């Protein structure tokens, strides 16, 4: 590492910090030995993208599912409003954890993102529909 410019060192430290066990887990990119450097960079980009998908996207899906349950349960099962809100919030943390697991289990980062989008569309449209309908009725 001695003799390398500071920026280079910083990058090495940064990347070294967050995925030193890169070699242990071959992925789509790492199987191309001809472009090892760019492959490792793309791999790290993939991990970063998945981390964002898991943390921000997972939270979004969990929040939407909580809101959707809170709105749907009274309409569907006649549950009290406060009970539905409670149920939705209690369930949302499990949804969050499962979303994170999905993101890292998906074969590619693109698949991970698109799965999240699909998982968000269903509760998202329900929330939109029911808040519109509720707002119109009130």
């Amino acid at each position, binding site marked *: 590492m001695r003799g390398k410019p500071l920026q280079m060192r910083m990058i090495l430290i940064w990347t070294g910090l967050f995925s030193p*066990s890169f070699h242990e887990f071959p992925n789509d990119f790492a199987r191309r030995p001809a472009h090892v450097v760019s492959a490792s960079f793309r791999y790290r980009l993939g991990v970063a993208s998945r981390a964002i998908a898991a943390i921000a996207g997972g939270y979004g899906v969990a929040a939407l599912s909580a*809101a*959707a349950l*809170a709105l749907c349960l009274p309409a569907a099962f006649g549950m009290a409003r406060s009970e539905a809100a409670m149920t939705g919030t*209690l369930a949302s*943390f499990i949804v969050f954890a499962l979303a994170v697991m999905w993101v890292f289990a998906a074969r590619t980062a693109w698949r*991970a993102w698109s799965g999240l989008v699909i998982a968000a569309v269903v509760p998202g449209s329900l929330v939109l529909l029911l808040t519109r309908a509720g*707002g119109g009725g009130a």
Partner: protein
Amino acid sequence: MKEGFRQSMAWLHTWSGLLVGWVLFMVFAAGTATYFKDEITFWMKPELHAVTPNAAPQAKAAEGAVAFLQQRAADAPRWFITLPTEREPSTSVLYLKPPPPAGAAPVERRRRFDQALLDPATGQAVTAPRETRGGEFFYRLHFDLHYMPAIWARWIVGFCAMFMLVAIFSGIVTHRRIFKDFFTFRPKKGQRSWLDAHNVTAVLALPYHAMITYTGLVTLMFMYMPWAPQAAYKDHGGTEAFFAEAFPGGGRTQFKASGTKAPLAPIAPMVAAASSHWNGAPVGRITVHFPNDANAVVSIARAGTQRLSSDQPSMQFNGVTGAQIGTFGDVPKAAAETRGVLYGLHIGRFADPLLRALFFLSGLAGCLMVATGLLLWAVKERQKFAKTLKQGGRIGFGLRLVDGLNLGAIAGLPMAMAAFFWANRLLPLDVADRGEAEIGWFFTVWGAAAALGLLRPTLRMWQAQLALGALLFVLLPVLNAFTGPAPLTVSLRSGPSAVAGFDLVAIALGLGLAGATWLVERKRRKAVSRQPAGTPPGLAASGQGS
């Protein structure tokens, strides 16, 4: 992402665990100590050890507390009276001081309260104990951290807890042979042994780990995930309306002072009425909103030891006429009760001494799970540098950082906790802001341990810190004997049992740390004997490390 589902989950388990492991270790350790919050606080107030409060019926204790508060804080906006229990034989009163005049500097939340312990029979304050945060410090530390706004801390801890939940779920998926793993321990086999130790401590108390992590998120769930009430109550009065509906009798915003004086009605009939409404169950906490005001309201909650849920049924009385206003929580609703039970499981207030001890042991298993997981990462990572090390090279920056943080967190924290107890007994009694000074010692020792660990993450350093921690813990009963009226020889025979329990647990924890020191010593000897002559032992040890 990886070859198969289990491989990718193993990856997720490794990284989600590592990145938040150090914070989680502290949260687990401080949270485990919190199971004995009352006992720790009691031990840290030796002035109370020789005083045996006289038992009295609940109504009399309540009357005494009200009389005391009328003298001490007649104009306070709110009084909180906690009647004596088996764990806490004195009546505890807490009151909100009147707000500072407009324009004055805002007062830190904690300093707006004043408190006292009363003898239930006489209503007199028991000997003023020394100023200390006691076990309350560990309780707050495990979700409010310290030296930062509580709201940031709660988000940080919540983030780590969510990672932990993911690590637990993915950890379960990773184990094909979860039952078999539980009965597998292969000692003295390096990485294998660490893996087995991690599996045993994790699987042994797995239901506990999953429960405590999920319920921890549940305790603050409306802060982390406010969207369900917000969406459902958007056109129905907002989240305020939600809380009023979901937690009837729990709100305080609906009470307003009138500004007109009016004498407070006697408390004893209210206590009797509440207790008989709950079929004779004891009363727990009494809250008086705006005492001596025409709008005074007395709220009485049932004692918390009766049921699993943290939500207790409560009753409200008009503070001037003594008439009953309403009863709340007699018929719990399903989802609200589920949340109450989850919350109750987290705080474990229902637990009798044996169950409490089991919770404590499970919490210790949680500490070991996090610690062995962190060490396992370092041991695995080190193997990648085996060749480099043989050629006299150095380990990578990431591994060195993890080594240092592991040392500071795992070996440093017990030492800091013990130092907190030593500071409690050794600091002069008249030090300004004594409670905060004790906490200062905790963080000074922990900071020093972490700095030394990062500078020299060697086996020798592990040994030194573990040994010092062991010594500080084992000697706590000796310290107690010299600085308090209830040494172990007395407390074992004639009480107080909380002091005897604290001393015995301190010895046990100290012996555990001594055992860990001995294990490191054995490892270091082996490392030195394997090294060719001429290499300084310190270097060899650091090469073999952790």
